[in-house]
């Protein structure tokens, strides 16, 4: 309100003293330069808050690690760090998809079920034909995920169903299908081929395959979301759907794409999950969507859309991975996990809002001067 008032009075005051202004044309030039300077300062400040946020996350990770290290000296051992990264890999792959979904102001609750279904179908196939190539299994799981994501995408983009309703429905349908397909039975380690299990548990050049999967996906994703037109369109659709449509972006296609990619990644993650734990069950990854959402919003992806960075979600998933790994190590009962996870989501979304408000205030200041 205040800024508006000033804006309104500004030009009229100028109008009254137009003659004076013309005379002072020389003196206004440095004024405008000063204005530009302060504006750019406000801009950098605003940009800085984003960096601060990531710096904050990084510092928080360090502090947590130090505390955990003091409580349990095994925490920062090489093997535990390797374990931790490998355990975080699946989560971090999924946050990639969730980031895109949340940037477009959506949410996907179905990914836990998609993972279970993809994992179950591929492991059943593997147990029926042990000779099958692991990469074919991977492709199969991704196809299942792709199909699930496509359905959700069509429902959300073309039938205008709220993302939460569509994914809540699909979550239950897919979970039910997983039980039906498996007839309630598990596929256990002895039914899986060694090649299939080595997808996740094997190493390449001494690094766990899971970590390599995650790195490859992050490199592709960082290029996609930052450098390609379609990637930038995703942000555009998230920050202002109407404007995006006005400038000719096919909003519905972008939303369809986002959910399809989420499904694809969930399918991939499902295969990796089943291969890692060497067991496919009806209740694989129940509630895992909440971990993914938590890590994503922790990484600074704004649930009101249009904001989020690759480095942010990477830090977010690492922090979440550390929490999940360290709590058992320092003898906190696993029953605390859900509570802590909820608090993390709550704290993350609230701090995102507070930071955003601060940014907006800075932007407003820029306008006043």
């Amino acid at each position, binding site marked *: 309100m205040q800024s508006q008032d000033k804006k309104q009075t500004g030009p009229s005051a100028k109008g009254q003293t137009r003659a004076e202004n013309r005379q002072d044309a020389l003196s206004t030039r440095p004024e405008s330069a000063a204005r530009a300077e302060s504006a750019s300062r406000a801009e950098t400040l605003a940009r800085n808050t984003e960096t601060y946020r990531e710096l904050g996350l990084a510092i928080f990770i360090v502090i947590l690690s130090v505390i955990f290290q003091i409580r349990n000296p095994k925490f920062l051992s090489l093997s535990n760090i390797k374990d931790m990264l490998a355990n975080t890999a699946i989560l971090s792959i999924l946050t990639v998809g969730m980031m895109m979904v949340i940037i477009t102001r959506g*949410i996907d609750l179905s990914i836990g079920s998609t993972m279970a279904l993809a994992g179950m179908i591929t492991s059943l196939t593997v147990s029926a034909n042990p000779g099958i190539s692991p990469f074919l299994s991977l492709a199969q799981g991704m196809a299942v995920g792709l199909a699930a994501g496509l359905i959700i995408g069509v429902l959300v983009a073309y039938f205008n169903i709220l993302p939460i309703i569509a994914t*809540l429905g699909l*979550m239950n349908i897919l979970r039910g*299908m997983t039980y039906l397909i498996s007839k309630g039975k598990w596929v256990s380690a002895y039914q899986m081929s060694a090649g299939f299990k080595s997808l996740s548990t094997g190493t390449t050049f001494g690094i766990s395959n899971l970590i390599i999967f995650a790195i490859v996906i992050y490199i592709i994703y960082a290029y996609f979301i930052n450098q390609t037109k379609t990637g930038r369109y995703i942000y555009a659709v998230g920050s202002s759907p109407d404007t995006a449509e006005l400038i000719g972006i096919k909003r519905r296609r972008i939303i369809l794409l986002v959910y399809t990619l989420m499904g694809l990644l969930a399918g991939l993650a499902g295969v990796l999950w089943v291969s890692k734990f060497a067991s496919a069950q009806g209740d694989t990854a129940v509630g895992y969507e909440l971990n993914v*959402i938590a890590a994503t919003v922790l990484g600074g992806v704004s649930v009101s859309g249009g904001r989020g960075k690759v480095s942010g979600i990477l830090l977010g998933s690492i922090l979440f991975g550390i929490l999940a790994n360290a709590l058992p190590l320092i003898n906190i009962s696993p029953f*605390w996990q859900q509570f802590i996870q*909820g608090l993390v989501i709550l704290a993350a979304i609230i701090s995102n809002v507070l930071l955003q408000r601060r940014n907006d205030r800075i932007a407003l200041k820029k306008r006043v001067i």
Partner: protein
Amino acid sequence: MHMTETTSVIDVNKPRGIRQYQWEIFLVVLFLAVNVVNSFLSPYYLTLDTFLSTPMNFLDKAFLVLPMTMIIILGNIDVSVGSIVALTSVLMAVSYNAGLPMPLAMVLALVISTTCGLINGLLQIKFRELSATIITLSTMTVYRGIAYVILEDRSAGHFPSWFSFLAWGYIGKVPFILIVFVLAAIVFAILLHTTRFGRMVFAVGNNKTACEYSGIRTGRIILGVSVITGLMAGFTSLFLTSRMGSTRPNVALGYELDVIAMTVLGGISTNGGKGRIAGPLISIFLIGFLNYGLGLRNVSAQVLLIILGFLLILSVLVQNFTDRPRQKSSSKSGKSAAPTHQSDAGSGSDIQGNSAQGG
């Protein structure tokens, strides 16, 4: 006077006469069909006793459908209701086992659940940038998390024997829970369709910004609905705990799906601002009896999940399709639209007058 005018503004596009109740009639037909099929499945089905006692199996969650109707009319979604039920139930059992008299424990349960609702509401109005979805998603995790922290993987119970009356008791031939539910439904119908508060719920759901400019305290409405939701979650938890006789942190898991599915199937548009409470009331019994019938056929719980998921998505799909042509026809037929525009403008100034008084 004022009330009737606001009504005419909100329901500008409403078709008159019997067409107005199309969806409810459709639900009733479905309900009858389900019952006909059920009666073929079991020769013992079609008796008054079955009819009266079957609702005991699903009425506990029906208490949540009533406030969920309000929430969805507001244009929000609440996925935390199941977790509130679980937390309340766990705390009631634990406090009773710790020596609190049962009636006090029950009151405590209602207080806790209402507090949970209040927290949801406060978060929503303090952080308006956040959608209700994400807020309730996080409180859902927190509430259920607290329940797990308290009870871990144990169960709690050993309630006094009279406590089971809530869920299993009869007054005459009618189950106690059915009587309480009918009373609650009447209260909600009055609250939603005849009071100022109810009209404001519709108004906020239609256009929140316009409401704010016209002097409605939207925050209070949202807070009020959240508190009511918490209270009803408390009732659900009382009846559910009584039905099961003991409690665990994982009770009422997935209730949000059941409740949202029942509400949406009842014809409450997820776009907000539209719907009548009669629809959800019918769909409670429709889904309840459907589940019962499928149970008679020994259909597994997993298939029920799939059916419920399909029902949820299908009912939203059908609504989105039936909503669209209505808007088109109203914009095409210029004659019928003209008077509504007039009334729109008239009450618009009325609202402005109100805000002038308020400000």
